[in-house]
């Protein structure tokens, strides 16, 4: 997890395009300035970052389903629940499932766990748009490679 660059997902563990489901891992850093303020003496991951991590997990799933033809942008956060504290150094495992692919939008349901403990969940809606800049597409390809996006998964229709 590279919080400074808002790259919160480290690794794709599993991507199942038939079931439209993804599992990713996100290692919370042991040390970061965020934890100095949030909170002194009791460092925990901010809920907005957990929500963003769930959104990025969903984003990779949607990119896979759409074969990187369009970019998902977070539009609606519903039922976001921070069910337990996530501490520095913990490994988050996030599972996202595509609930609905509409015309120009997609909806996911996401859950984040540390070990077996459910820590956060949400229903997220994304607007789907053509890549607004070629540089973004290049960046997403590079990030996909970095986090182990299984490009071969998209060749099976």
């Amino acid at each position: 997890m590279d919080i400074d660059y808002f790259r919160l997902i480290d690794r794709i563990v599993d991507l199942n395009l038939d079931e439209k489901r993804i599992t990713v891992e996100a290692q919370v850093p042991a040390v970061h300035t965020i934890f100095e303020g949030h909170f002194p003496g009791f460092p925990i991951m901010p809920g907005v970052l957990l929500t963003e991590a769930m959104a990025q997990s969903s984003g990779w799933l949607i990119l896979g389903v759409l074969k990187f033809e369009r970019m998902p942008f977070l539009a609606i956060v519903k039922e976001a629940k921070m069910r337990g504290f996530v501490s520095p150094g913990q490994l988050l495992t996030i599972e996202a499932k595509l609930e609905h692919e509409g015309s120009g939008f997609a909806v996911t349901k996401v859950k984040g766990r540390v070990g077996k403990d459910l820590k956060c969940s949400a229903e997220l809606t994304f607007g789907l748009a053509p890549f607004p800049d070629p540089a973004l597409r290049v960046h997403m390809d590079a990030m996909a490679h970095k986090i182990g996006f299984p490009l071969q998964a998209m060749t099976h229709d």
Partner: protein
Amino acid sequence: MSSTFDQIANIIAETCDIPRDTIKPESHAIDDLGIDSLDFLDIAFAIDKAFGIKMPLEKWTQEVNDGKATTEQYFVLQNLADRIDELVAAKNAAPGA
């Protein structure tokens, strides 16, 4: 069984917190009810789920932008209900339906 219009109106009332009795068949979703594009995403999701369809919002928007259709054809609620009925009928007529 409630009509398609009634189902849409109930969805809009619940999703956008608009009093149900102000939503009429002749209401224009954008001009009269003030529904914006983000709220319409929510409504579209609920309608897609309720009717088991995929409303072709992008196609409709393109037709409006190209001057091939008016917003009234898709966003006056009785017309929207008619479009939904057509989509449901097409789905039920499809092979394997």
